[in-house]
């Protein structure tokens, strides 16, 4: 078991958002989480990543046999968790190359492995960027500043494919992407899956699941999973919405 969330309750400003939430993800599995707005999907993503604005009231998160609740944001990242943000943050004056090199080097340092020098890293990032159809000149622009929605999302996937996490959470990475960009992103996910990464994919759209086959689909409502199933569950939602799930 890679991730085991048990009876997790989370609140922010005294409002409970996740209620007695449980989910387990095995190595190499892809889980899709669907649900109406406000059901707690993004909160789940943020809590897993260690965002400190949320209050953990109850429950456990075990990741790779470690008690995640005892680790801070960067330690969780170094343990192999990656969050592709729904709204990637702009950092003016910082281009992705040095940013991502610091990120991967801090991870390698944590694992006591050899760090990248700037030349090696430049080669790596260029080859990965090519796979994602990101032009080289974009690599020297400030992180997410003045990028289009689709560019930001592709940048998140670029970071994911370099950091090679054990578990990647994609928080509505598909929204705002046209079909070509979507294809590029899903190819990346499928490639990484072969290297034994697990995924939690938060989405509104079934179309994504035509390109990435999930092992499980969960319907989330009011802070908990109300139904789990296979891909056919997603189709049911596409046809009749969330009304029927209680």
């Amino acid at each position: 078991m890679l991730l085991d969330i048990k009876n997790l309750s989370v609140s922010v400003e005294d409002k409970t958002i996740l209620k007695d939430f449980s989910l387990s993800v095995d190595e190499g599995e892809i889980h899709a989480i669907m649900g109406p707005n406000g059901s707690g999907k993004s909160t789940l993503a943020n809590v897993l990543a260690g965002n400190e604005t949320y209050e953990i009231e109850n429950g456990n998160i075990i990741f790779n046999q470690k008690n995640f609740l005892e680790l801070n944001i960067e330690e969780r990242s170094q343990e192999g968790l990656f969050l592709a943000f729904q709204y990637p943050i702009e950092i003016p004056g910082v281009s992705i190359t040095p940013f991502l090199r610091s990120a991967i080097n801090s991870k390698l340092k944590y694992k006591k492995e050899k760090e990248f020098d700037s030349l090696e890293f430049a080669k790596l990032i260029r080859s990965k960027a090519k796979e994602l159809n990101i032009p080289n000149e974009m690599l020297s622009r400030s992180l997410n500043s003045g990028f289009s929605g689709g560019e930001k999302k592709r940048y998140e996937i670029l970071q994911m494919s370099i950091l090679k996490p054990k578990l990647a959470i994609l928080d509505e990475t598909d929204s705002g992407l046209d079909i070509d960009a979507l294809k590029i992103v899903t190819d990346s996910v499928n490639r990484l899956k072969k290297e034994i990464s697990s995924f939690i994919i938060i989405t509104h759209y079934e179309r994504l699941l035509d390109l990435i086959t999930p092992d499980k689909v969960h319907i989330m409502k009011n802070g908990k999973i109300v139904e789990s199933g296979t891909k056919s569950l997603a189709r049911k939602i596409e046809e009749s919405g969330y009304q029927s799930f209680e």
Partner: protein
Amino acid sequence: MKNTNDEAIAKFKNSSYKYGFITEIEEDKPEKGLNERTIVFISNKKKEPKWMLEWRLKAFERWKKMKEPKWANIDFPNIDYQNIYYYSSPKGLDEKPKSLDEVDPKLIETYNKLGIPLEEQKKLAGVAVDAVFDSVSVATTYKEELEKKGIIFCSISEAIKNHPDLIKKYLGSVIPVGDHFFSALNSAVFTDGSFVYIPENTICPMELSTYFRINSEETGQFERTLIIADKGSYVSYLEGCTAPKRDSNQLHAANVELIALDNAEIKYSTVQNWYPGDEKGKGGIYNFVTKRGLCKGVNSKISWTQVETGSAITWKYPSCILKGDNSIGEFYSVAITNNYQQADTGTKMIHTGKNTKSKIISKGISIGNSQNTYRGQVKFLGLASNSRNYTQCDSLLIGNKCGAHTVPNIESKNKTAVVEHEASTSKINEDQLFYCRQRGLSQEEAVSLIVNGFCKQVLQELPMEFAVEAQKLVSISLEGSVG
């Protein structure tokens, strides 16, 4: 729930000032205090001609009638000018050593420790260094190579003896002796600093730089630097400064004058890292500096770049007088204040010639309990037709006990002048920190990255050899600002 910012501020301790060591060396000092005897002592030590001593004494007469300027946004106890040593040199340095063999190895070791090797085999490639220790220049590298091109690079004390015509013509020509309290004080008691003359149509083939070190206790350092770029010449000059950690405050009051003649360009960069005091605000240098450049000739250009991370108090406004038609003045500044540091810094751009242009980019970063003020003046006189200024002032706050202030002043007597002014104040936000940390960076690394990004526009103006150092210095200055 933990609040990252509060935690960030709370952990801000243990300043890691790397240059705080003291060199134990025998010193030559006059009695404490400032009077005519002190000035005669300095002038004698430097074996100056009589006209120089008279110049100093006149400045002293002016100074006695003047008062410290009080308009800056800084707060410090009264300075007792009679309780300072005005001169200190390592024993036996009455004559500047002809070669390094004559220099006390302790001094050479000091500069090695500071990362400024002076020995022939180790000296920095492509950078000529004048090393000033308290009140005297210890050594100047690459002097002979530069002389072959007619470039003069030496200490100001040597220039007074060897190039009196240039000194008489230009010293005090940009900063008049009686300009204000500190300029008069400096004119009376200045000890050492650098002198640069670039002859006509000469591009200086290497970076020139001066490294100022304060070592002696209770001693003021009164730097005087003069740079003249003759017609069609170019020079890039850089100064660095450090001092030991001491509990008492020390004064560094400099006068720096630049003169660019027709079609000449001077690029002047500063990496100021004087001891800033401890985390409670005890000790540190009072850095009261007057820097002014005169774009005297047509199409001349003077560009100031400064990275100000040290000093308990920084009070400086590197300025340009744009006298020659089509001349250009630039000011790029990063000022970081931490703990109880105070900085009141900025520039003056005085447009007097036609078609003159100026550009100001100021980045202020305040951390801890510090206060950081940008103060700037842009002035267009009646004859400065078709002139323009662009000003951008950005402030970044880390924590909620510090202050950032912007005091711009724009005056125009010419209707054709164009002024643009942009200003912003921001805080490092939680979302940016969360994003960076999610990628595996520690909070400290994240803050350093964000701040370096914020300063990038200025840091990239530094000569390449120093840009990396400056980035590191920025990161070090932030140390402890996060948890």
